[in-house]
């Protein structure tokens, strides 16, 4: 499995810069408003310092009243400004996140199927759920918090500098230890928290799967095994939590012990300056209060940095999807004919040994070809080559004389459809699940298509074509889902169908129903059926036996039975008595 790429740091930075410059104005407004709000928020301690000075100088009640009122005014102004700052920031975040997820989905949809399959859909699923939402919450919640905290800190420390530069320098004295321990912590935190999260998720999964598989647990007497398995998970969670706790222990104790240092330094230096009449008592008090006030934004900044770092890592994975070259647009828009020809096709999965060794095959329009053979013979690989999902390493697969991989992908999918045992019901209405195969189809056509494949369950749906399906709505059974997929095919109307064990995952009676539905779809089309049921082979015009990546026998059913090869032997064991009659 080759994993999907992850963007490097430079790419992520560039993408971030692009995002900011696209929303230049919004970002500017947000920063300006937050700064103004923070400035207004600085006034109360300064005013308190003024009160201290005035009262010490023997000022009256009127002065105190006026200054106290000013404090209240500043609180209100600051709150108002920060409201608008937050709202603007929020809108920016929403816009940026929407852009990001839409881009991600459209890129995901443009990925070549072979890339997704090789990377495993799990990786992509994680990116689409965990990573996109991590980046989303980072942009929406974490970045604003960090921006506000940074602005506040800058202004608070700036204010102390304004009171007296020496006080400012003293205030900075407490910071080196904080910076050092933060760097130490950030280097370790992300991976430790990811481990913790993964361990917790595994424990939950153990509980859930134990419940899901309860009957199997009872039948195979797995109870003790499940408990043992779960206990191991509990231990792993406990260990992971201890690891993160150890990190926090170091980090928080150093950081919290460092918080009073700036205050202490300012008081000491302030005492020295006060003795030389270089500052007022009020200025020192205000500086001490500013620094006391700085603890809160500093705390927030430090707590969220780790989140921001994780957001950065997720962003790199989200961007990585965009680095896969999209499926190349074909060079030919429409296929001139319908005749499928395979010449000397060899294929191997990413530098592995060849799975197909020189396949030669011709399928006439309207012909039905069954491909049989033991598992691992390369049947599915051949199906993928015929459908144009993979290109042969050597040789050519062409339709109407034009290599299938040169066809425009959208056009190719409309003409050659691959039906596998995998079926997927999309979240959405019945119409949503059908219309994408043929956007122009009318409701009546859709109903007719469902009737063609024998989807009688459709009549019982409460809202006709608008009945929602999947995920919390109506769940379709395997056969129903497969019928839906077949109705889609009827609408898409491809001239060539490749069936890769389309009914293999169904239980026998369901399979029978589905096969009947399938028969309705097959009429009038070229069909290549990868089959594991011999009756499918029997009904076909020709049968190809595939073994070890080679076609060992090909011909009509009767010819092959008469030839007395492997196929004939198998057929006899299937229909013992009938043959002897």
């Amino acid at each position, binding site marked *: 499995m080759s994993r999907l790429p992850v963007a490097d740091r430079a790419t992520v930075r560039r993408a971030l810069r692009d995002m900011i410059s696209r929303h230049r104005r919004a970002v500017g407004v947000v920063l300006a408003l937050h700064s103004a709000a923070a400035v207004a928020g600085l006034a109360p301690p300064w005013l308190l310092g003024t009160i201290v000075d005035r009262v010490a100088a023997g000022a009256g009640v009127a002065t105190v009243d006026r200054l106290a009122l000013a404090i*209240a005014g500043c609180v209100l102004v600051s709150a108002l400004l920060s409201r608008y700052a937050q709202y603007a920031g929020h809108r920016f975040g929403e816009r940026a996140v929407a852009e990001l997820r839409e881009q991600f989905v459209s890129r995901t949809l443009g990925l070549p199927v072979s890339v997704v399959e090789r990377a495993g859909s799990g990786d992509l699923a994680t990116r689409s759920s965990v990573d996109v939402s991590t980046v989303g919450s980072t942009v929406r919640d974490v970045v604003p918090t960090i921006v506000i905290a940074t602005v506040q800190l800058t202004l608070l420390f700036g204010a102390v500098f304004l009171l007296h530069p020496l006080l400012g320098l003293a205030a900075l004295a407490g910071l080196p230890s904080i910076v050092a321990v933060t760097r130490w912590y950030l280097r370790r935190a992300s991976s430790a928290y990811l481990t913790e999260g993964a361990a917790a998720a595994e424990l939950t999964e153990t509980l859930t799967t134990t419940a899901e598989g309860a009957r199997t647990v009872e039948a195979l007497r797995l109870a003790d095994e499940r408990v043992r398995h779960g206990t191991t998970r509990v231990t792993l969670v406990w260990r992971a939590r201890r690891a993160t706790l150890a990190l926090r222990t170091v980090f928080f104790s150093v950081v919290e012990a460092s918080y009073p240092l700036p205050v202490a330094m300012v008081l000491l230096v302030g005492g020295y300056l006060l*003795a030389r009449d270089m500052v007022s008592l009020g200025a020192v008090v205000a500086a001490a209060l500013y620094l*006391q006030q700085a603890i809160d934004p500093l705390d927030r900044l430090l707590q969220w940095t780790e989140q921001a770092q994780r957001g950065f890592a997720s962003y790199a994975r989200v961007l990585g999807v965009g680095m896969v070259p999209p499926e190349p647009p074909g060079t030919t828009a429409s296929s001139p004919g319908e005749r499928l020809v395979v010449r000397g096709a060899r294929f191997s999965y990413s530098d592995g040994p060849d799975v197909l060794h020189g396949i030669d095959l011709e399928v006439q329009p309207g012909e039905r070809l069954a491909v049989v053979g033991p598992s691992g013979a390369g049947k599915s690989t051949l199906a993928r080559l015929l459908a144009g999902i993979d290109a042969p390493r050597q040789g050519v697969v062409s339709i109407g004389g034009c290599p299938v991989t040169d066809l425009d992908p959208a056009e190719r999918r409309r003409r050659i459809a691959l039906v596998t045992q995998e079926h997927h019901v999309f979240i959405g209405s019945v119409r949503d699940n059908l219309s994408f195969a043929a956007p122009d189809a009318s409701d009546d056509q859709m109903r007719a298509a469902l009737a063609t494949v024998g989807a009688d369950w459709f009549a019982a749906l409460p809202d006709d074509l608008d009945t929602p399906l999947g995920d919390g709505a109506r769940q379709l059974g395997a056969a129903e889902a497969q019928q839906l997929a077949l109705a889609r095919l009827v609408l898409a109307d491809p001239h060539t169908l490749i069936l890769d064990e389309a009914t293999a995952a169904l239980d026998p009676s369901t399979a029978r129903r589905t096969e009947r539905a399938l028969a309705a779809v097959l009429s009038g089309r070229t069909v290549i059926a990868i089959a594991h049921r011999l009756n499918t082979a029997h009904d076909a015009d020709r049968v190809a036996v595939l073994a070890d990546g080679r076609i060992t026998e090909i011909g009509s059913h009767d010819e092959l039975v008469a030839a007395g090869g492997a196929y004939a032997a198998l057929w006899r064991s299937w229909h013992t008595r009938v043959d002897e009659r």
Partner: protein
Amino acid sequence: MRYLWWLVRCQPWRVLRGSLLGTAWMIGLSARPYLIARAVDDGLRTGDTRALALWVAAIVVAGVGLSYLGIMRHRTMTFIREDAKARSAEVLLRHLSRIGAVLPRRVGAGEVSTIGGSDIDWTAQVLTLTGPGVGAVVAYGVIAVVLWSISPMLAFCVLVGVPVVGLVVGPLLRRLERAESVYRRQQGALTARSGDIVAGLRVLAGVGGRDLFARRYAARSQELRAEGYRVGAVNSWIDAATVAIPGLFLAAVVWLTARMAVTGDVTIGELVAVYGYVATLIVPVWFLLEGSHQLIRGRVAARRIADLLNVTPDDVGGPGRRWPDSTPEARRPEARRPGSVPEARRPPGPAAPDGPADLHDPVTGLTVRAGSLTGVAVNDPATAVALADRLGRYVVSGVTWGGVPLRDVALDEVRARILVADHDSYLFAGTLRDILGAGADDDDERIGAALRTASAQDVVDALPAGLDTPIDARARTLSGGQRQRLRLARALHREPEVLILIDPTSAVDAHTEARIAERLRTARAGRTTVLIATSPLLLGRADLVAHVSAGRVTGTGSHTDLFDSDPAYRHLVARGSEEAYR
């Protein structure tokens, strides 16, 4: 509530330590304003350098002490919560693994995952109350005493004012949470959609429609953005209010204190200290408000856990459901409600047959001969499943085993000797070796033999680390046919006295199926095996085949006999291809 109390009682010393540390830390928070005030009053104002140095040193020392208390409190509380989580998880796990087959019918898998995920966390979160919760009450009292010594009138204003501010702001924050939760739900739905697209990517590649999906997703995403704008507009007001209200209250206190300073009722240092106390008092008050909210949520979560623990197995008749008293849930009072009498106390039933014995199902009239390979061809899958349930005693029935009613035999013994291998039995996550040999410490040789019989060696060979390759739950990465062969190998590896297989090869190609049929016969030679299937390749290898139609055995004999004499049977096993053949 009793469940919560049980979690507390499991770790009394840790909880006590948490309370002490929580209290000390919370009180320590108010030390800094006091020390700064003393430094201003005694050091700066009087110009006394020694006093200043002393108080500043005290500030630093107090800071270190406070950070120590803070981190120890955090550590203790984390351990308390983790202990509770681990305990809940283990109790749940033990219970879940013993309930058995009935569970999926009683409780949805989604519910278990909610309980296992968030309810355990919420329950553990309540225990936070034992530390900072206790601390908050004490700290509130201490600050009250200190303020009282400065000015009773001020103390009164502050002590009433701060909780009032908390009560005003608290509901606002709840509202914020609610607005957020609507947004999060929509966001979850959108994430589900993108997951849906990823999951269906191959389908889209098969028949097209990518552009349509991209457009549809974008439309939903824009809806969420609009909802985000709405939430943002409301939330930013609430946020501003939560900052402005305490700020205004602080301004009022400063105003009151400053006027008293003017008249000389308080010193300037005390003015600064009061400012600090008010800011500090927010912390304990906040903890209490938050704590009460946590308690409400935690009680709901704990009740759901307790409800799940009260789910009891179905009564499938007879004695012998072992319900070990050593597990914690048995010690909990809830587990012993009247009506759920531990079944182990029932009197033992008649002994099961000592060795292999015939099974007889009166409903269909089927008799399974001991030591033989019996094929059962059933035209209706529901009948087939019901038959297997009766033979394996998943329901109460009249099935007899060597003449003994199966329902009277100890259930443990039935499970140990009769294995029903479902068509869709569950594959748990783990290495392939775990999946196949789970529970038994055993050598690869027996696993290899089982794999060979199930013709599943190629599945193992194709995996990067062979038997040691980790596999997801439900083995989603494998194909239907591969999964089916692994299930078969797992069942064979158990080597049960009676093995009942339901459609074991429906997803396997004909070549492989023929091979499995042959090997199965050899591997199970001399032991009782029931093969519920319609494939002629399998049935052809059975010693005896019973044809069940409309719920009754309508014919028995060898596959070839039935094929010749019973047209319905012929039709069933040839799956309709016979007409074409003629």
